[in-house]
């Protein structure tokens, strides 16, 4: 039984008496504990966001986040409307029993079960369904589903008053014409409330195109005959070329990674590989499939789908009132001694027709006089031509033939006349094969292979080959049928029996009836009705703003059940700039890897904060993402996101003002109240730790940002453990008790050889001024010219070395920093640049490259003896990793971050003086440590850079993802 606990009363209580918080939440925990065996969900109101977050936090250990659902209440509506709205929401969740928290907490845990059953009994039983709409193509449409539907209707019409909804000129089936009213799709939209149930039959062909928009507008139960719907989507695209249905459907079912490297011209591949059935799975009220195989496919594709809404009902078959076998054979021109082997259905590579022909030609069957082989079905394309040629070149070609599309009469004649049927399949993708049932129904002994759902056929009712059988096995099976008439006899009887017992239409129709009955919502309003009621009671028809609020709340509340968990990756700052260096570079690399190599069943979406007329909102960054991954043709706009309970949001870059303002407007609070787990990646908090190395005023902005992050997040992830610890300490020190501390984690960056932080176009030839053959050691420093990198310290250090007669060469690669700032705000940069330019060793033992290309940088890495990093502090220290990847020794300042990143793979220089502090003694110490290193270097005993451990970006993204998804507790 599905129990829904309405906790809105608890929210009110918490809001009214915060001092009672601990007691109230403990009561909730106790209640959940005693209900641990029940399928429990908790409903919350979105207009008490703080309380919703508290409750979610309390229950998070005992119950999955996706089972706690929050009802968004439109802003500024009157209390009556909002209560009605919330009641509508409780009904929409379709629980077996809704109880409020106040009622439950009064009951002692011993009496709980008794109370529950008492409540269950009092529940109003929904009236049975009387009138249903049946949405499916029907004969004369040339699809197996049309015939199936016609058969099913013969049974359903006994139980319901049925209207059929079709998009075809005529319905030729006399029974349907007599017993059902034929309606148009338009009618269904306008009169959906007149029906107790709506049933769709969906298959993978153009015949079903008209049903797709209906599924969302008039939701019902969808019978999914095919799991893969790519051909259907492609057919819609051909009918309306301005909309890339296929690409969009695949984007929704499988995300960006499915589209990378694909374009519209590769549609065959896309159709083959991706299900493209997201909308059907998401917007239907329930799904019916014909086999457990299909159910598993759905579960794997959409892990978050509610399993209770998927029903398996076997494909049905009307026990045939046998037509005379002898008459059928006479009509087909067969004589008594002939042995007719048939395979039914459209002939294609998936049906292994060529394999059958070969095996038949090789078996005793073909040697037997009067033995015939008929392919009953259309054989188009190159495969059909191939098959025809192979028949013509075989022995006695007149004994094998292809009938082409067989009309019902002819089809049934063949079924009645056949002595043996062979129904083979390869690459089953969740289709249902009705033809096998046809064969069994006509008592034809049938050979199948255990592919997809066929493996679920009752044993002994068919001759079952392995899924990937050898040709010899098929030959053996054919021989067995000839040699052992008693086997054929048994198959024939058991097959028929299975039809009578398992696939009997009456039985299947009963199952349909119970599924339909269970979906009946007595007296409950549909989302549309709830929205319309709210609009009319708020008189919002003419008031744009309040109508917008209603739609916005409706989207969050009634937007359809979530079937895939989504990780929303916030790249607000990165998407807004063309910069590909620093944090932006990290964000791009992580996003890319998460999107391409994330995990099955989890969507990864890029999002960005955007200022709209309704305040800051998270919107998809689809254009940015398409550009990043090189995807074309999706053509979707950057609309606001619709997060669901259980989703995650992780912010990868430092967006500053947008985050601060969004936090003030409650964007993050709303997300968290709706069950979105919020994480921020923090690259460093240097502006707070050492404000003097940043432009004046940077500290204040950064402080506001970090405050907003602290208030907004469930999780903070440092790029190093050092950063993570620093943030935690800062929050404990500066903001004690202001907000509950988030959890802290850390995840190292990745690195790869190809990417470089520099994108200017200097070629290696520009290094000509650099002495090519020099025995003097070369020290390389990489990074923007800014105060905290301590180039001033490097110059002091080298001045000391040069003065004492040593000959080392210092190469600095980095652009002059903060060039958008006036000189008086640039700290020591102007004087540092001046000093670099006019240094007496400039061009001799000191080189500064203000921007350099990848090629030249690689060349420098080759020529250098060691990388030198003297920063006062860093977030991560990517140059250390990049140097060690090129096996360049690393000499670094002895700071926590460098210790963490480089470990034993680097040589550390002491000297703790920060910028602006006297450094004379430090310089003496450092120069002697540098000389020590040189001595080791000569003997090749310096620390080995190859011992530095580093991650690829893919590993880094994987680590980040597992933290975000809460899989990892560090």
């Amino acid at each position: 039984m599905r129990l829904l606990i309405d906790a809105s009363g608890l929210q009110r209580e918490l809001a009214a008496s915060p001092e009672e918080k601990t007691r109230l939440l403990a009561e909730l925990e106790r209640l959940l504990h005693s209900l641990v065996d029940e399928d429990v969900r908790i409903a919350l109101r979105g207009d008490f966001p703080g309380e919703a977050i508290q409750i979610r936090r309390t229950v998070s250990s005992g119950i999955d986040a996706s089972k706690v659902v929050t009802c968004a209440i439109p802003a500024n509506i009157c209390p009556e409307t909002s209560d009605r709205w919330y009641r509508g929401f409780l009904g929409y969740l379709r629980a077996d029993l809704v109880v409020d928290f106040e009622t439950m907490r009064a009951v002692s845990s011993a009496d709980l079960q008794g109370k529950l059953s008492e409540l269950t009994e009092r529940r109003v039983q929904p009236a049975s369904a009387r009138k249903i709409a049946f949405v499916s193509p029907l004969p004369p449409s040339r699809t197996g589903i049309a015939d199936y539907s016609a058969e099913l209707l013969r049974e359903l019409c006994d139980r319901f008053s049925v209207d059929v909804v079709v998009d075809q000129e005529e319905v030729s089936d006399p029974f349907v014409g007599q017993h059902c009213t034929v309606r148009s799709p338009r009618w269904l939209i306008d009169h959906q409330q007149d029906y107790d149930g709506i049933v769709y039959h969906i298959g993978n062909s153009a015949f079903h195109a008209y049903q797709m928009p209906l599924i969302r507008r008039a939701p019902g139960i969808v019978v999914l005959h095919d799991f893969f719907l790519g051909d259907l989507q492609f057919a819609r695209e051909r009918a309306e070329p301005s909309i890339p249905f296929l690409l969009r459907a695949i984007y929704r079912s499988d995300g960006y990674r499915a589209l990378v490297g694909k374009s519209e011209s590769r549609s065959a591949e896309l159709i083959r590989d991706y299900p493209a059935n997201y909308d059907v799975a998401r917007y239907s009220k329930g799904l019916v499939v014909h086999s457990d195989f299909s159910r598993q496919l759905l579960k794997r594709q959409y892990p978050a789908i509610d399993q209770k809404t998927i029903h398996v009902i076997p494909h049905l078959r009307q026990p045939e009132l046998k037509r005379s076998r002898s008459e059928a054979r006479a009509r087909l021109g067969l004589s008594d001694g002939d042995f007719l082997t048939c395979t039914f259905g459209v002939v294609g590579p998936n049906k292994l027709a060529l394999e059958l022909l070969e095996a038949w030609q090789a078996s005793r069957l073909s040697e037997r006089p009067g033995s015939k082989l008929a392919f009953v079905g259309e054989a188009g394309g190159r495969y059909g031509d191939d098959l025809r040629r192979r028949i013509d070149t075989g022995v006695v070609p007149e004994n094998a033939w292809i009938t082409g599309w067989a009309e019902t009469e002819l089809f049934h004649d063949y079924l009645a006349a056949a002595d043996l049927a062979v129904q083979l399949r390869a690459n089953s993708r969740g289709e249902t094969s009705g033809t096998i049932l046809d064969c069994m129904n006509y008592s034809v002994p049938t050979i199948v292979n255990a592919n997809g759902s066929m493996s679920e056929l009752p044993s002994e009712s068919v001759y079952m080959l392995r899924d990937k059988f050898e040709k010899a096995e098929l030959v053996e099976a054919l021989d067995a049928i000839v040699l052992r008439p008693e086997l054929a006899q048994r198959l024939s009887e058991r097959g028929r029996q299975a039809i009578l017992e398992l696939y009997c239409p009456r039985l299947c129709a009963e199952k349909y009836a119970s599924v339909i009955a269970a979906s009946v919502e007595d007296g409950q309003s549909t989302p549309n009705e709830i929205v319309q009621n709210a609009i009319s009671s708020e008189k919002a028809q003419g008031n744009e703003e309040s109508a917008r609020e209603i739609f916005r709340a409706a989207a969050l509340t009634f937007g359809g059940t979530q079937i895939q968990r989504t990780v929303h990756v916030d790249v607000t700052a990165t998407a807004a700039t063309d910069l590909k260096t620093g944090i932006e570079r990290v964000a791009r690399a992580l996003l890319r890897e998460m999107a391409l190599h994330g995990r099955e069943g989890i969507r990864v979406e890029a999002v960005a904060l955007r200022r709209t007329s309704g305040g800051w909102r998270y919107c998809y960054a689809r254009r940015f993402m398409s550009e990043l991954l090189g995807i074309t043709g999706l053509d979707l706009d950057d609309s606001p996101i619709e997060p669901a309970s259980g989703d995650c949001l992780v912010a990868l870059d430092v967006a500053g003002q947008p985050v601060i303002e969004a936090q003030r407007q409650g964007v993050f609070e709303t997300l968290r109240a709706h069950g979105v787990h919020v994480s921020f990646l923090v690259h460093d908090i240097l502006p707070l730790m050492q404000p003097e190395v940043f432009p004046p005023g940077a500290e204040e902005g950064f402080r506001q940002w970090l405050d907003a992050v602290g208030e907004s997040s469930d999780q903070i992830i440092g790029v190093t453990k050092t950063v993570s610890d620093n943030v935690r300490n800062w929050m404990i020190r500066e903001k004690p008790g202001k907000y509950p501390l988030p959890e802290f984690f850390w995840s190292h960056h990745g690195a790869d050889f190809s990417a470089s932080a520099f994108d200017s176009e200097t070629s290696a030839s520009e290094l000509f001024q650099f002495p090519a053959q020099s025995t003097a050691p070369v020290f390389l420093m990489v990074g923007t010219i800014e105060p905290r990198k301590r180039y001033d310290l490097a110059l002091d250090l080298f001045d000391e070395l040069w003065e004492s007669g040593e000959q080392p060469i210092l190469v600095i690669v980095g652009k002059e920093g903060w060039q958008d700032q006036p000189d008086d705000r640039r700290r020591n940069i102007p004087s540092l640049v001046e000093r670099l330019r006019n240094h007496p060793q400039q061009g001799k033992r000191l080189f500064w490259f203000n921007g350099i290309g990848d090629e030249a940088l690689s060349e420098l890495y080759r020529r250098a003896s060691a990388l030198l990093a003297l920063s006062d502090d860093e977030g991560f220290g990517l140059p250390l990793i990049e140097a060690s990847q090129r096996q360049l020794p690393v000499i670094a300042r002895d700071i926590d971050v460098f210790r963490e990143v480089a470990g034993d793979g680097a040589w550390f220089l002491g000297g703790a003086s920060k910028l602006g502090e006297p450094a004379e003694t430090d310089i003496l110490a450092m120069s002697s440590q540098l000389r020590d290193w040189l001595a080791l270097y000569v003997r090749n005993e310096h620390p080995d850079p190859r011992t530095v451990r580093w991650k690829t970006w893919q590993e880094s993204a994987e680590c980040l993802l597992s933290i975000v998804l809460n899989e990892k507790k560090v």
Partner: protein
Amino acid sequence: MSSDFYKAFEDRFRGERSDIKQRLTVYLPFITPLLRLDPESLAVDLGCGRGEWLELLLENGFQAQGVDLDRGMLKDCEVRGLPVLKQDALEFLKSQDDSSVAVVSGFHVAEHVPFPYLQELINEAFRVLRPGGVLILETPNPENVTVGSHKFYMDPTHRQPIPGELLKFVADHCGFARSRILRLNEPKSDGVNEDLRLIDVLEGVSPDYAVVAQKKAPVNEMVAFDMPFAMETGMSLDGAANRYDDELRNRLEAVSQGLDKMREQCVSKTEHLAKIAQLEKRIGELEAARSASFLKSLLRPVARWVIGKALTAGWKRKAFERALARFPVLRGHILAFARNQNLPGAWLPQGLAPLDELGLDHSVTPGLSEMSESERFFYAESIHGQDRSKNKKGL
């Protein structure tokens, strides 16, 4: 190598006797004038093989002597009654007196002997030839790509291919007064207009050549030989390649001319179509103008201005809304007009076809772009609901 083998090889590869004799007639213009100088002229054929050339010499009135080392070949000649000797060619020449012979020939000999031997052979030939006497040396032409690359090596007794210019140089160097390269035996083409294919460039160059050299004689005696020495024969690699290029260029030229002509035609047709489209548009405008009444066209800009003002300015809009609240039908009309005119502030534009994959208008209006996909859905449904209730009332 057994003698029978070589004879069998010759039989297999050098072709029918009459064919060979027919091919050899090409040399007759070089030697027949010698009979006028001396009716008793002696022609010596070194490596005479099966004796086709000896036969041709005798038939044309020369005294002839064949020399060969291959017993099988010699037997063939003896059977036919041809005058042959079994002796080494160089030894034979050395045994002859100065200026005693009118013609010295060697067909497919040069490629079988070491180069110094060849040089000495040519020197000796120069010595024994009388003034005006003619040396003929025929050999495979390595300038023909298939010959040079592999056909030459089909004969295991071949030593090295000899480029024509080299052989000619050796002859000139010995003191012959004039010499020329005669390219021979190229496949016959039926007509001049036949297309030259690449394979013809590779295989069609004359597969054999001969150097024909003449010893100095008084000018009046040499004149009779001017014609054959000036005659054009055969196909060279340069010639074939150039001809191939020329033909290709001509064909491309023809194609490009054809394209130019088509392009001109296209342009003129497009212009016609554009004119037709202009006319159609004009007709449309005229029809539209006729249907829109004069009054409407006068009122529309005024209404646009008034409603536009009323919808955008805050307090005016409020007043406007208040005033219209009592006249919902009129309000609907005005808003519909505002939407039609695409006025700012005319909220909720109507008409949401065609639908996208979610059943929504895919051409996103600015007002919709700030809505999420489900918000758009509820918005569209709400519009639809309003339309429906309006229709019901209408009924």
